[in-house]
Structure formats: C-alpha cells, structure tokens
C-alpha cells in the first residue's frame, strides 16, 4: 500500500533522510520509531505530499505521490504532530466543513459524520464548541476529521504524544478498530512500548537511516538472539550452577550468592527441561525469569549516538 524507495531529503547541511526505503502492506499497522530529529516527521510530510523529496520514489496505493499529489491526498488521511482546530466551530460544524472540502457526497455526508463521531466516541459532544474540548477529545476529533473521506491509508505523526495514559489506551483501541476495517496505518512515535502493543511491524529510524525493520519479535531476535535467564534461589547458587552446566542451550552460566544467570541458546521447548533439572538438583527456586530484552533498552541501543549497527530487515521489507 505504501512503497518508499531511496528517499532523500536535505535541509542545508543537515541530511534529514539518507535514502530510506519502506514497504507497508495493506491493512497493516506500521510503527515508525526514532528519537527527535531522526526524520520521522519529514518522511510523513513527504508521504502526505506536503513536502517534496530531493530524491526517491513514493507510491501510495500505487499512485506516484510526486506526479499526482491530488490523487494521493484523496486516498490518505494525515494527522500531523501539531495541528490547529477552528476553536470557534462546533464539533459537527468542523466535520461538516471537512466533509465538504473532501467532497463527500451530500447524500452520505450526515451518515459519514455520524459514523466518525461514533467511532471516536464524540457523538455526545457533537454540539459542543471545539474550544471547550479536552486534549484527548481534540485528538479524537482530528482523527474523526481524518477519517471522514474514508481514506485507505492513515499517516499519524506522534498522535499520542500529549495524551494521558487513559487517552492513549482509548486511542489504541480506535486504531485496532480501524485495522479491523482494513485501513493501512503508519504510526510515528518515539515511544517503542506503545507501538509494540498495536503495530504489526516497526521500522526504527536514526539520523535519517532505517536501522531496523520487522516485527517486534524479529527485531528483538536480531538484537538479542540469546535471552538471559535469571534465577533467584533460596539456597546457594553454586550447587544449582553445577546442575545446569553442560546442559544443551545453557551458555556462560554464572553464580552470585543466591542468584544464577545464564544465556539461553536452545529452543523454547527446551527451557522447561532446564527448569526441571534445577528443581531435581535440590535448588529451592524462588523465581525463574527469561529476559528476552527490554524494548526500551533495545531501542536505546539502536538509536544511541555513535552506534553504527544496522539490523538487516526481513526479505519482504528490504
């Protein structure tokens, strides 16, 4: 649904995008993650045809964005990070304005407005002045506006950055519903955790370069192929260490007081056997924790300054 090839953009001396490529399938929620200044907003603005690229091809729903921006605009809904609302309009007036701008047929205009209000849970607020809405409601109203013309692609630039935790959860629910309706969503954020819960795949961007692309599991596996197992015991760890040494999949075991650590290179199915061997050795196991890698740590590792590691994307997204 979205194809980006060799996208480059410079602002004077600064290279905002250094030839990025992305491929996003229909009906997918795709997370676009990176620290501030990584080039997320620039990518989204180019996709939304607000900005021109210096080099590269962008296709949305098979349409070349540079050649036919009007056609692309009709198929996508763009929610910028910062946007303004007409504070002196009522909620329904705002949606009515944009349904006219997007040339929604008068025959279905009222139905479309009602549907969008219902989806974003704003039906009760339809006669309220926009200036009286809370931040979360404004965000949902703008999303409703973005959905009015039934776009196939949604570009969301840090849509939850100013929301409280409850509003974020509500927003994620709406996105899940939109995915069920077949929308393709490109969601940019600098919070990996919230994307991990909703996105099918993510791309991690740093200084205009895509460092990793794939599902959260793929990225995790690529960055941390061997999870660390941490065992807390109520008995000396040295005995337990002897019991697991030499077991298949156990690497670099270390004992420190009453805690035991080792790296696991075996299959997932082999892990219960290791646990059983520990119990059989007489170790009093208090907790057994498999650390597959904290998402935030992985993200920081990828986007830290001076890091040159690039995770090869899976074949379908290369």
């Amino acid at each position, binding site marked *: 649904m979205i194809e980006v090839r060799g996208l480059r953009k410079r602002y004077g001396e600064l290279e905002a995008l250094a030839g990025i490529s992305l491929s996003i399938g229909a009906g997918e929620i795709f997370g676009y993650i990176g620290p501030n200044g990584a080039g997320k907003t620039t990518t989204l603005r180019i996709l939304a*045809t*607000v900005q021109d690229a210096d080099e590269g091809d962008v296709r949305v729903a098979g349409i070349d964005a540079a050649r036919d921006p009007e056609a692309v*605009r009709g198929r996508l809904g763009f929610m*910028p990070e910062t*946007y*303004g609302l007409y504070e002196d*309009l009522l909620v329904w007036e705002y949606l009515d304005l*944009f349904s006219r701008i997007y040339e929604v047929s008068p025959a279905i205009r009222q139905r479309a407005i009602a549907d969008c209000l219902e989806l974003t849970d704003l039906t009760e607020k339809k006669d309220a002045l926009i200036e009286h809405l809370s931040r979360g409601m404004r965000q949902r109203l703008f999303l409703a506006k973005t959905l009015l013309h039934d776009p196939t692609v949604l570009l969301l630039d840090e849509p939850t950055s100013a929301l409280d935790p409850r509003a974020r959860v509500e927003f994620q629910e709406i996105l899940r519903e939109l995915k069920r309706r077949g929308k393709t969503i490109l969601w940019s954020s600098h919070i990996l955790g919230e994307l991990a819960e909703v996105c099918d795949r993510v791309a991690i961007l740093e200084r205009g370069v895509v460092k990793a692309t794939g599902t959260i599991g793929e990225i995790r596996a690529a960055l941390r192929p061997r999870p660390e197992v941490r065992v807390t015991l109520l008995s000396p760890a040295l005995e337990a260490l002897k019991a697991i040494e030499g077991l298949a999949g156990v690497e670099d075991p270390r004992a420190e007081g009453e805690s035991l650590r080792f790296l696991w290179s075996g299959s997932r199915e082999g892990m219960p056997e290791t646990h059983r061997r520990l119990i059989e050795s007489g170790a009093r196991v208090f907790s057994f924790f498999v650390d597959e890698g904290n998402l935030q740590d992985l993200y920081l590792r990828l986007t830290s300054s001076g890091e040159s590691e690039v995770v090869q994307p899976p074949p379908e997204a290369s």
Partner: protein
Amino acid sequence: MSWKFDWNPLFLKDLRVLLRDRKAERRGWWGVAVLSAPAVVLLALQFAFPGIFARVGRYVLLGYGILANVAALGAVAIAATSIVAEREKNTYEVLQVSPVTPERLFLGKALFAVYGVFVRQILLLVPMAVVYLSGGFSFSVILLYQVVLLAADLLVASLGVYVSAQPHRIPKIALSALKHSATRTQVALQKAMGVSVLFLILLPFYAVLIPTMAGAAAASRAATGRGGRLEMMPDLSLLGTICPAVTLAFWGEVEIFGLSVPLWLLTVGCNLLLATMFFHFGVGQLRGRDRDASLGGRACLLAFVTFAVALLCGNLGGAGTAGPFVAGCGMTFLFCIVLTPCLSVGELTKAEQKGFRAEWVANSLSPRRLLRSRVSGASGFLVLLVLVATPFLWLLLGREALTVAATTVVSALGLSALGNRSSQNAKDAPANKGAFAAFVVLILIVSTIVPVLLQVAKKATPTPAVVTAADVSLAAVVPLNPVASVFLRLMTTMGEDIAQLDDLRGEAGPTARHAWVITCAWYAAIGLLAALWPRKREEKPTAAAPPSST
C-alpha cells in the same frame, strides 16, 4: 441535466462563525451607527445651508467616495489576516494536505472579505440617498457606483489575500523594540493596510487637495467680483481607473485617444484586472512553485501597465500637476511607514508588553543605546529612504526636493523623539506608544482635512466667519503639519506650471512659502525638548529592586 451550486466551504465556515459571534453583532451595530452619522451630518448641512450640495457638487461625491473607501479597508483587514492567521494557528497545513485547491482557498478567503464589507457599503446607501434627494446625485450614479465599489472590494480583498499568502518575516528594520514581539499576522496587516490606505484614501485625497485649494481661491476672487474659475484638473481623473473615490468625483466620460469611455467602466475593468493579477500571484504563492499561476499574474500586470502608460501618453498634458502630487503621496507614505509599526504595539499581549518594556528600560540606561534607539529603527529607516529618494525627487521637483527632504526628516525625527520620551515616561510604555502614534496620525489627518474643508465651505458659503476661519487655518494650522506645509511650498513655487494655482499663490502669500521653515523649526524644537526632558525616576533601578528586575 441538473446543476447544483456548491458553496465554497471555507467561505461558509467563516460566515458561520461571523453570524454566531455576538461580539461581531455588537460591532456591526456600532458600524451601522458610525456609518449612519454621515447621513445625519448631510441632513443637517442641507437644513442649515439649503442647496449646498448643488453648489459644492463634486466635492460631496469625493467625500462619499472616501467614506466608501474607508469601509473597504475592512475588507483589507479581513483578507490580510486570513491565510497568515491559518498558518499561525497551524490550520493551514491541515488545509494544505486536503484536496482543497489554492484557487478555492484564495476565493473562499477573498469572498468572505468582500461579503463583510459589501454589507457595510450597502449601509452607505443611506447618506447617498440623502444627497440624491437634495439633488447631489443622479439615480444612475447610485446604481453604477455600487458596481464600481464591488469591483474595488474584489481588488482590495484580492490584494489582502495575496499579502496574507506570502511567507512573512518579522522585519528587523522596524522599531528595534518591536522586532521580537510583532506577529506575522500583524506584519501582513500592516503591509496590506499601508498599500490600501495609499490607494484608497491618500490617492483621492491628494488628487483633489490641490484643485480644491486652487478652486477655493478662485471662488473667493469670484465672490469679490475679480473673476476666477472652479474646476478640477481633468488629467487627474485618470487616477479614477484604480481609485473608485476619484471615479465618483470625476463622474462622467474620459477621452482616450479620441474615444469617449465612461470612467466608471474603466474603473471596473482596471479593478477586476488587478484583482485577477493578485489572484494569480496569490495562488502562485500558495502553490509554492507554480509557474502557470505566476504567468497569469504577470500577464495581468503587463496588460495594466500597458493600459496605464497608454492613458498617460494619450491624456496627460504637462508634468506640472504630477510633481506636487507625487511628492505629497510619497511623503505621507513615509510617515505611514514610521507610524504604523507603533500602532500595533497596543495589540501586544501582556507578556509581549513586558518584554517590550524591559528592552525599552535597558535602552534608557545606556546613553549609546538611547541615542541609537532614537535615530535608528523606524525613523532611521525613514531617513535612509529620504536619502535614497531625494535624487529622484530632484529630477522631478528640482531644488524643491531639498525642501521635501528637510521637512520630512526633521519632523519625523522630532515626532520620533517625542514618542520615545513619551513611552519612557509612561507607566505602560507600549500602550502609551500606541496611543501616541494614533494621536499623531489623528492630528496629521485633522490638520490636513480641516483647512481643506474650510476652504470648501468658504467657497460654498463665503460668510465673514467662514472666510476668517479658513484663512486662519491656512496660516496657522497647515504650517504645523509637515505634509500640508510641503504641499503649500510646492504649490506656491511650482505654480508657473499650474494655471489653477495662480489665485492660491496670491491668497496664501508668504505664509505658504515659508510654511516648511516654520514646520522644521517647530518639530526640531519638539525633538530637542523631548531629548532634554528628564526621565521619570520610577524607570531607574532603585535600591529596593534588584538590578535584574529592571
């Protein structure tokens, strides 16, 4: 086949907000009250001086025209803040990514501006009807003039939206204390208002100032049996091609290369041509790199320039009347450049005013910065402009260019020093500065308009009281007004080329010739007094307040 009219959604949106805005409704009634005032004045005049409109003739038409133009400034204000305000409120990008075309966006904003002002111009039909009933207008003039006004509204709205569509930068050359505080909306508003005031108010004013005063002198001589004539200069009627007020004053037909054409038709044509030009340029701005839209604008500009040159070549006689006219327009325009930035200070938020005050006090504490703040900024810009313009004025006016330059520079510096000191001594400097600038503008306008109106009254009803008042105003008020003093000087020294001014030269005498000297002395004294006047103690840092608080 059915056809359904599709309203411009942006026009509908603005209209919806306007109709719901209770404050707008209140302002609207104030507008009705203000615009009804001329009708009351005209009725009173008709009652006090029966038949006055028939005798004054075209001057009433000009007055009505200027009134209509003042109403049209509302369209400029609405249009000039339209798109730039969308940018500042972050709503423009939302429109940009929608399928709304730049043409639709431009038209939506321009139409709303025209709608707003056309309602007010319909209200102006009330005073127009009064003049019609007393024999001043014909019915066809009333009808056709509404068409002219509509075209002029389209022009100013189009100009306003074009200015609004530009990517404005906060000017660094304006008042140094303002450059951190002004918003882009204010900058756009000032630019559009400056150009519109020049064309809508100053142009008709100067087009008629000289002939009015000349005519007044001639009428005075006629009243005393010494003969004379009362005529406007016909070549100035061509200004009516872009200014509807002048069109009304010179209502009739003009001859272009032997062909008689109604002036109102020329005005409508030129206004629509220029409106189309601004439309194309504005759409080009909104598109970013749209060569086609800019080409359309350039084609309109070329057509208008060709037409204007043809008119000038075909109809203008000598350059004698153009000299004082151009000089007067230019000088007043320069004054507007100085004073309009001051006017926006009163609109700043409290936080912005705080910053303004802090910088102003800091300037006061440093002699070097104090000196710089007095002669730099707007007044420094004015001096620079005068230096650049003087050689060109010399070509046009000869040695009188020095008179214009000297009067402009001295009076601008004097006013600037007075304004600066007035701000420093005030508790709330920005608001005071805004009020000061408004006061100066008012004084300039009143001290120019009052003598002219008195001259008109003197011509219409030359009673001893009116004649005395007119002469006193000419001798006393005008020399203190830098714009008027330059006019008088030019009129009396360049009168050889202007037959209609012969009488005035005799009337004004030495006062008119030396008005500019009196003006320079007056404003130099004001400036010196302001510079030497001690500052109030409250502005200095005190022991109780830490230095950082100042």
